[in-house]
């Protein structure tokens, strides 16, 4: 038996076709999905996302050409500017939502999926997956990307805007992270993480 996480109605799980999803008959919440690919596809997407995450943080996102002076910033540069401007709370918020949480997200995925792909049980797997699910809403790379685009439009009147390598990397990163999240089937992972019950 299964219970809906939004209305608590008990229901019997039904077998799904590949790519299908089951909704609660009472409130319509999505109960579970059957992904087209297994955990290996999620691992591949996560590995690609790690590469882009590195690029997105190593290079400037955007540069500004203003009367002969150029000023470019990376994500880390932007966070430290906020810190220097005496708004440490804001710096911490931006750091957490765009750097720390996505980094933890990717690291946790690798921690779980690499051993699973090799046929082993990850160390503290259940704990790591619980942590991953808990911090998921706080990683906001896609919102940040939209913020970058709005900022670019605002600045384009003021000066010449030079898109950096990280801008494209961020674009790819949000697609890969979304695809990895969409392909990740936690219901497949849970039974393989837990200790065998006596």
């Amino acid at each position, binding site marked *: *038996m*299964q*219970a809906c*996480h*939004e*209305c*608590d*109605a*008990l229901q019997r799980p039904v077998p799904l076709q590949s790519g299908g999803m089951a909704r609660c008959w*009472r*409130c*319509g*919440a999505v109960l*579970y999905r059957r992904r087209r690919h297994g955990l290996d596809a999620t691992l591949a997407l996560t590995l690609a996302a790690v590469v882009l995450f590195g690029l997105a943080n190593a290079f400037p*996102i*955007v*540069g*500004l050409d*203003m*009367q002969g*002076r150029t*000023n*470019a*910033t990376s994500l880390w540069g*932007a966070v430290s*500017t*906020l810190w220097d*401007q005496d*708004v440490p*709370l*804001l710096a911490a*918020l*931006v750091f957490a*939502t*765009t750097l720390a949480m996505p980094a933890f997200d990717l690291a946790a995925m690798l921690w779980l999926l690499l051993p699973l792909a090799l046929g082993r049980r990850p160390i503290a797997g*259940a*704990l790591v*997956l*619980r942590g991953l*699910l808990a911090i998921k*809403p706080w990683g*906001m790379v896609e*919102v*940040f990307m*939209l*913020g*970058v685009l*709005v*900022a670019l*439009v*605002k*600045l384009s*009147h*003021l000066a010449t805007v030079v898109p950096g390598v990280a801008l494209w990397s961020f674009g790819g990163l949000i697609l890969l992270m979304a695809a990895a999240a969409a392909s990740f089937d*936690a*219901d497949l992972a*849970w*039974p393989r993480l*837990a200790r065998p*019950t006596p």
Partner: protein
Amino acid sequence: MNRSLLSVPTAAAAGLARCHACGLLSRLPAAAGDAQAACPRCGAVLHLRRPASVARTWAYLSAAAVLYVPANVLPVMRSGSLFGVQEDTILSGVVFLWQDGSWFLAALVFIASIVVPLAKLLVLFFLLLGVQWRSAWRPQWRTRLYRTIEYLGRWSMLDIYVVTLLAALVQVQSLAAIQAGPGAVAFGAVVVLTMLASQSFDPRLIWDAAAAAAAPATARPPAPTEAAR
């Protein structure tokens, strides 16, 4: 409201708790007392409902409502240039985009920064009242409302990121410099607090309250209007 939707077997009524982390259903020990049961599969603490859901949601919601005022009144951004200092609030930033001809972006920022936070505050307020007044009114629709604001909440961070980037990029000494203002801190706090509020709210309480409100009614004899028909 269709009564049959309200008198269905629920996990809680069967003494089963759904693990909030891994979704496994397990039986809560009958004499639970203060001892906390853990999910046999993932080890998370089991609860029938999110603990102190209503009180926690009220707490986060009132804190967010208080900070909503400085978030909109104080400047989120201070731009200094040769021509003086200009201060922008959330709303004046939208107006700037609109007058600039970027209607699409103006609408986007307006929705993300003004409509969504306000809608979240009002919807959570409405949902909490519904639970506390044991309302049986359209639980299905109210659950959908909850799902929507839970999904949309994160997009309100948009303006925080815009200010962050502008402050980092426009730093040409003596020509122009942009600084993040105190309004941005308050606004960021509103977004975080409303997210915490919607995470602590348990939508199952909507159904518990609706079922409790409907239960005595089913025991009553049919109303005269129904008999006459």
